[in-house]
């Protein structure tokens, strides 16, 4: 069935699936940003840098281990390493700044972004790094006579798993419930004898770990290079704004809107596809200035 010239239903379906695989990455990174925004009230501009570091760590670990196994080991170790790095930053510096104004925190995370960028440059130099996907995820399979990359299919499986994991963590575990309570009223949680400072450290660590996981997942599909942090952090901020600041499910909704409008726009009007997700952001903000779901701010 043909909709217009070369746009068939099969092509449209395939484009939706490709868009959903991009949505997975956007959701994973945005949900970390949203978690930190919602609980700690920190607009973490350095979130993209941690995503970049996640990709570089993945490259290092995968190269060290070698072969297809290298990627799987890196997929586990790199986000954990990013989480531990963020824990150091949180315990060393952030925990002394929570009572400061948002502007101060904003400036700090901006400075942190610059420092982390320079550290990456010092460690890895300015050349590109590239990592191959494991053999079983290379190539594509046929979907309605059109090729669909195996790696994108893998991402489609990872997205729901991460979403379920986050739901479980925040709704079914004690630490998750405490974190949600601390997001609403940190004084009340502290009055109950809970060490809010460590709760915050845990949440910050998980949020950054998600950024590292996003970086690890994109490593086989793109250049691992300085500057890869800039684009993603802007997109993620737009996603959490349209989803509702600090609302993790809002991040999922925002990522879906961003990823799908971008992907379908490329098929429908390829010459101007760049503007589609941004037009969607403008429309959402015109209709619901505070975002689609309830903002925690």
């Amino acid at each position, binding site marked *: 069935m043909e909709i217009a010239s070369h746009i068939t239903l099969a092509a449209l379906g395939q*484009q939706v699936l490709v868009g959903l695989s991009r949505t997975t990455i956007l959701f994973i990174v945005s949900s970390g940003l949203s978690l930190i925004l919602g609980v700690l009230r920190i607009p973490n501009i350095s979130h993209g840098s941690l995503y970049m570091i996640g990709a570089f760590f993945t490259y290092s670990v995968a190269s060290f281990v070698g072969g297809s196994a290298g990627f799987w080991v890196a997929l586990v170790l790199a986000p954990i390493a990013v989480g531990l790095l963020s824990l150091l930053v949180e315990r060393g510096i952030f925990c002394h700044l929570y009572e400061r104004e948002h502007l101060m925190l904003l400036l700090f995370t901006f400075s942190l972004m610059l420092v982390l960028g320079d550290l990456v440059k010092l460690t890895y130099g300015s050349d590109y790094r590239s990592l191959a996907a494991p053999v079983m995820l290379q190539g*594509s399979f046929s979907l309605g006579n059109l090729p669909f990359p195996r790696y994108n299919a893998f991402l489609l499986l990872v997205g729901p798993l991460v979403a379920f994991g986050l739901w479980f963590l925040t709704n079914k575990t004690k630490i998750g419930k405490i974190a949600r309570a601390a997001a609403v009223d940190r004084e009340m949680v502290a009055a109950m004898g809970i060490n809010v400072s460590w709760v915050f450290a845990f949440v910050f660590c998980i949020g950054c770990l998600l950024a590292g996981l996003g970086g690890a997942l994109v490593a086989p599909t793109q*250049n691992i290079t300085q500057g890869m942090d800039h684009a993603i952090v802007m997109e993620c901020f737009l996603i959490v704004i349209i989803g509702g600041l600090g609302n993790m499910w809002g991040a999922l909704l925002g990522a879906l809107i961003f990823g799908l409008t971008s992907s379908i726009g490329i098929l429908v009007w390829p010459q101007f596809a760049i503007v589609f997700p941004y037009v969607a952001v403008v429309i959402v903000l015109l209709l619901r200035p505070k975002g689609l779901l309830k903002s925690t701010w």
Partner: protein
Amino acid sequence: MKGKLWLILALTAALGLALGGAAMAKTIKIGMVDCYSGPPSTYTNDVRDAFKLYIKKVNAKGGVWGNKFEVLTRDSKFKVDLGLAAAKELIMREGVSALVGTINSGLALAISDLAQRENIPFFATFSKSAKISGAKGHRYVFQITENTAMIGKAAAAGLAKKPYIKYWIAGDDYEYGHAVADGVWQNLKKLKPEVKLLGQSWWKVGEPDFTPYITAILAAKPDAVIVATGGRDCVPFLKAAQATGFNKKVPFYMHTATELATLRPVGKGAPEGVMGTSNYHFYYPDSAANKAFAKEFQDAYGRIPTVGALYGYITAQLITGAYQKAKTMKGDKFVDAVEGMKVNTPVGTVELRAYDHQALLPMYLGTTKKSDKYDFLVADGIIDITPAEAAPDVNEIKKARGK
């Protein structure tokens, strides 16, 4: 006592002569402005290093006319304002005699304007805008790299020989992408009027994921695709092409697809059968001069030279050669000396055309193929495209300049 006095006087005189001689010798400063941080440095570091390599050799032989060259570098960080400020600083404070750089076309055009005002020679080494030696060319600007007009002509000459009729164009949504795509398409239409354009896709520079672009193009079923993307986007594009099997379903041409700087990072994971054009391969031409150059560069820096190394080397050859001829770096005498100069390079004799100051380099159209010798793909089935085939002729330049 008298003997000692004579000895002291003799030593003092010798020292005086030595110092006097040293004072007479000059240091000729050359300023290099380019992006040495971030992704473009993959290309620009080789320009700088090969330039310095040649200058070092000249200096080791005593310089030119007893005068030695000093190279000063400044990082533009790919920003026009920063790069232009650095170029001004090099002229005003450091007193450089010539400027060299840059990969950013916008910055190259801005420095070109400055060079014209200051009467200082500027050698554009990696910026591809055809305006540099074309419409906006002037007496003090020289373009060493191939430009978008030449890429367009060379690619069209190669594609016209293929049986493809229905094309799709896709590329970076900025000047380089549009100029390359337009150049290829306009020339291809002249050579093969029956070609048809099915559609176009344009993406932002630094696009992280090309998969949706490729799947959308495949749905349109073109015979071939012209991909006008450059720099940092080449690697992820090739990765997405490999993942989707794009190159196996539809042949595509991408200017820099066969360049080492693009292929080396992807390793064996790059797709085979992609058509690309380049001014240089370290393994082609298979000549003694090229082998010697590749070895010299590798011995000095521990890495294989990419196309940028050729540009840097030729630029140094031209500057030192013209100084040898003119005995000055200043004004019209130097420009007269460098205009029309021919130098022996790793790719053969290269002429800096007198009319438009464009270096006439050969181009090589090849197709990516795995190699047993290297852990990255190389260009296979290389077709030589001569400068006469690729470069716009003088009448076209006159037309572009409104003459």
